[in-house]
């Protein structure tokens, strides 16, 4: 059906587009004041296109969907693509859960279609192309940091492919995210940074924050409730947290202008919906101006939240000044934050440059419910994990994982992959420890700054967390975008992902400043010292008479004939 429509479109492109827009663009900004006094702003831009990228028909006419990305998806037969660039670490204990979690650095995971024969080759090419599109060092993704998780990363869109040989996952914990990554990301938006919510995305303010994360998610979704045909969904998200002390001058008072040094004047003309949500669940603590009569409720991350909504497509939202600059002002200093049910930390224990131990602590703060989590850690090969030292314990007792998937590393080829299904007892800390040995690299394998240390990417903890309120499983409802990303299959629990800190590990490092001295010294020692000393030690020396002269030899021959003693 979609294909026929597309052919149709191609012949009467202009006319047809006006009649039946096959693509749809929505934009949305959620502002959540945090208990610490910081403020969290989350942008989402969603483009849905009823085009079939999976079929053999080439899609060539692009309207709202970015062409550069569409071509990549077609060329490399990508089913799902998730890429995120993050600068900073999400502080779960201070800020609660983010709407969309991401690890520090760059993360990329892709499900390929089952028609792809050479997955590794395609992956390699794809990362290089994406590297160009996003101006990032994704080309450093190779077999040494790519893994195929068996359970942690299921497809988020529709599709029944579960063979994880079509999945590739990689992180670059060292990737630094800055303006050069933001610009290409903004270019993918239909309005660019000209109109709508994206005018707020000015780099001088975005990068004056404590946390910055931008992501692109492409996945197939159902076109209609019966799910007979699929559409391609592109979600671009950007999360940013502004700090009370550095950006807010210590005052618990925030406005759009203070955060972004811009105000909103219009919606993106191409957007079918353009809304700003402000989380007012803790309303007694702060006042919001201008007030809006529009309130909506949504169940997000196991909690029922109330939001004030500003609809930018309505002229009334902008008021008489023709610009929207909402102001939040705290009345009371602070209240108790709902403690996040799941959080984790990770660190390297021990000292010296030979061995060490990776500790991962997973906290379950639920007072009476146990729940399972999937722990995934991909560790580079130069930390040689001693997997027999793996211990999992909670509350002082051994806690046997019910599922372990371990793929040992191969030097210079692939990393360790460890996936475990753990049951977290209520109100407990589960500690996973594993010892490792630090490898001595070849001298060309060291980075230009070897004394900085080597990074180990974040572990991923995926969990179905028991929910306090019934989750909304009905996906047909017109919900805010931020509450509908992870598919929700049951009412009693919700899906959550937590990333641990990356690790910085020092490896034994030679002194690179003196290879010349070392070479000279070694050569001298080997050539002169060792040679002659060996000679002295292995041989015995005796005094040898010098060979007699010619006259003497002749005299001796004569003497032998005569039978007298030789000279």
């Amino acid at each position, binding site marked *: 059906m979609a294909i026929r429509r597309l052919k149709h479109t191609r012949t009467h492109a202009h006319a047809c587009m006006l009649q039946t827009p096959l693509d749809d663009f929505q934009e949305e900004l959620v502002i959540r004041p945090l208990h610490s006094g910081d403020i969290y702003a989350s942008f989402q831009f969603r483009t849905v296109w009823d085009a079939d990228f999976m079929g053999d028909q080439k899609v060539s006419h692009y309207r709202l969907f970015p062409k550069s990305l569409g071509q990549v998806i077609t060329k490399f037969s990508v089913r799902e693509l998730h890429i995120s660039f993050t600068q900073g670490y999400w502080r779960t204990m201070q800020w609660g859960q983010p709407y969309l979690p991401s690890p520090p650095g760059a993360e990329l995971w892709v499900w390929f279609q089952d028609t792809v024969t050479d997955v590794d080759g395609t992956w390699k090419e794809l990362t290089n192309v994406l590297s160009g599109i996003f101006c990032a060092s994704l080309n450093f993704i190779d077999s040494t940091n790519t893994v195929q998780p068996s359970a942690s990363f299921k497809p988020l869109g529709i599709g029944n492919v579960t063979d994880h040989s079509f999945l590739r996952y990689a992180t670059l914990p060292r990737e630094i995210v800055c303006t050069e990554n933001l610009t290409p990301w903004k270019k993918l938006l239909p309005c660019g940074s000209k109109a709508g919510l994206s005018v707020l995305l000015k780099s001088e303010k975005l*990068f004056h924050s404590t*946390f910055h994360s931008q992501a692109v998610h492409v996945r197939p979704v159902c076109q209609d409730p019966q799910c007979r045909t699929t559409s391609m969904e592109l979600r671009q998200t950007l999360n940013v947290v502004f*700090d009370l002390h550095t950006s807010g001058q210590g005052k618990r008072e925030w406005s759009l202008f203070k955060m972004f040094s811009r105000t909103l004047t219009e919606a993106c003309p191409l957007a079918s919906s353009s809304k700003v949500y402000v989380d007012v669940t803790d309303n007694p603590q702060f006042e919001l101006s201008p007030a809006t009569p529009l309130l909506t409720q949504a169940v997000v991350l196991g909690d029922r939240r109330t939001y004030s909504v500003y609809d930018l497509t309505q002229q009334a939202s902008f008021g008489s000044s023709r610009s929207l600059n909402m102001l939040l002002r705290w009345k009371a200093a602070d209240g108790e934050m709902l403690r996040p049910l799941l959080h984790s930390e990770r660190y*390297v224990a021990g*000292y010296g*440059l030979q061995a060490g131990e990776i500790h991962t602590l997973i906290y379950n703060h639920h007072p009476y419910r146990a729940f399972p989590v999937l722990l995934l850690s991909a560790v580079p090969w130069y930390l040689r994990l001693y997997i027999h030292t793996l211990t999992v314990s909670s509350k002082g007792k051994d806690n046997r994982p019910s599922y372990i998937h371990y793929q040992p590393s191969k030097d210079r080829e692939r990393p360790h992959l460890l996936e475990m299904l753990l049951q977290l007892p209520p109100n407990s800390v589960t500690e996973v420890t594993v010892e490792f040995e630090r490898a001595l690299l070849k001298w060309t394998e060291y980075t230009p700054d070897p004394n*900085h240390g080597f990074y180990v990417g974040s572990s991923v903890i995926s969990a179905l967390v028991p929910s306090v309120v019934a989750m909304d499983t009905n996906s047909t409802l017109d919900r805010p975008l931020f509450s509908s990303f992870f598919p929700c299959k049951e009412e009693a629990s919700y899906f959550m992902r937590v990333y641990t800190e990356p690790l*910085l590990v020092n490896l034994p490092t030679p002194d690179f400043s003196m290879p010349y001295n070392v070479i000279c010294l070694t050569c001298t020692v080997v050539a002169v010292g060792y040679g*002659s000393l060996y000679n002295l030690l292995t041989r015995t020396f005796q005094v040898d008479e010098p060979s007699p002269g010619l006259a003497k030899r002749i005299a001796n021959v004569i003497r032998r004939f005569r039978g007298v003693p030789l000279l």
Partner: protein
Amino acid sequence: MGLLSDPNRRRALIGMLTRLNAPICMICYMAGVAWFMGLAFEPFTLRTYMSENAMGSTMVEERFPAGERALATGREFAAHKKKTGGMPVDWLVRTMQARGLEVYTQRFSRKLPFPDEDKERYMVKGTNVYGILRAPRAPRTEALVLSAPCSPGNENNQAVGILLGLAQYFRSQIYWAKDIIFLVNEHDLIGMQAWLEGYHHTNTTGMDWSPLQGRGGSIQAALSLELSSDVVTSLDLVLEGLNGQLPNLDLANLFYAFCQKIGVLCTTQGKLPRNDWDTTSGYSHAVQTMMLMVLKQASSRPWGDHGLFLRYHIEAASIKGVNSFRPYKTDATTVGRLLEGMYRKLNNLLERLHQSYFFYLMPSLTRFVSIGYYMPAFGLLALILLLRALDLWVQLSSPPTRTTEDGVEVVPASPGVLSILTPLVISHLTGVALYTLPVLSQELAVEHFPVSETEAVVLTAIAIYTAGLALPHNTHRLLAGEGTEQGWKVLKLVAVLYLAVLLGCTALINFSLGFILALTLVPLAAFITPHVPKTLSAVVMVILSPGLTLLFAVFFFQELQETPVTLQEGWMLYLSVISQGILDHALYGSLLYPLAALLVYPCWLLFWNILFWK
């Protein structure tokens, strides 16, 4: 090498070495000492320079404004400390939280092997409080530490005040790339040890501590601040850490650079750098500074709270505020600006400090002697041992054949393994006794003698040490036959080589300790035979023994610090130094006590055995 492969010339060379052995040894010894004394002479030393590019050329501005407020916080801290009679944990937690830090506490407890009479503690219980300033947009992989001890009495309140003032100021800055941990540790080094072990989740000394809740990744550098007055005249930099470890020289350079920039007087070992190197007093000033560093390093103990960081490969130093009678004073704002500048530069580091030297001596804060320059001094002393060993080896391999009346040549029987092994084993057993018994037998000693536990431990150690002198007589009772002429030579060969290896290894790890030991033990090892005058030699040997070396070092150190002590005070100080040495080993893992008891003392006993060889 051609010289050695020719048997004739080899024989000649060896002949010369054995004939001129004693003069060569004398020359080597004097050359070694002279070389060492020359290290403090300014034309022979290098000027310090910043090697780390990331800290060298980048400019930072210091803008810390709130010195007075910091001092007020310090006074508030003092008041709360007085009220709680110890660490004001709740107040610190609240104050740090109000400054926007993530605050955590750590409880620890430790029972000392015997009461520490210097610091009056036995059962130690305490709490460390630390706040983490999370760097914006950084993934918690790197951290810097600023620590100030919570000392009993009225000390270091200003240090805590400045720490909190800096925390507040640092918090509002956007440029941090590494987390900064502000730590207030109780019970000085014990608290620091507990915190570091907790942070790295290791337990080397059997201390009880509660696990840490918050971390900031791998620590790149640390500074410890000690300040007990509102204004200071100078700042003193302390570098010597546990087991003679030193931080990278760039940390000292950084401190010096900022002192110069801000205009604060700075010292090391409490001595100002001087320019008059060509005068006798200038030279002797440099020698004193260097000798203080050598003695401190040789003591193997941490000379500030920073000393324990070095084990974890964290570059650390202590900065102590000194308030003397000089007229020119520096206020707290300036000290804060100095620290701000240092932290901003450390924040700029891309790699750990590694560009500059780790092994050095400092005759002043502006001059240093690197390992390449000071090692020959030790090498010259060690050469004596090798020459003596060669001499003995030659004597043993060509035994003087005696001709009996019948004209039959009799080769003296080579000594049995037993006669060599017995003194070796017995002296080491004495060493083991010296290492274990003092702490183990303290209760027994307290029961029978009217002494405290600490005195019991120290006096037991001295008693065992002295009892070891009676060994030669007892050793011979164990031996079946008479010791032969060959016997003592083999024993001495073994002892000399043993000493050479021991001193060599020690000097590689801790040059100062190795050099001081070599200075006293090498002449003794060189001249001792059974044929020297017994009484005189015995007196000389006892004077040069490790125990008395320590006593002299104590007097010498006091002399250098310009706080001379009387004999009586010196003796008391000596006793307390021994007890501190044993405590340092038990609490922080200092290696001096086991090294002295298990290896150096038995080695000295071997020579004692040779002297009384029958």
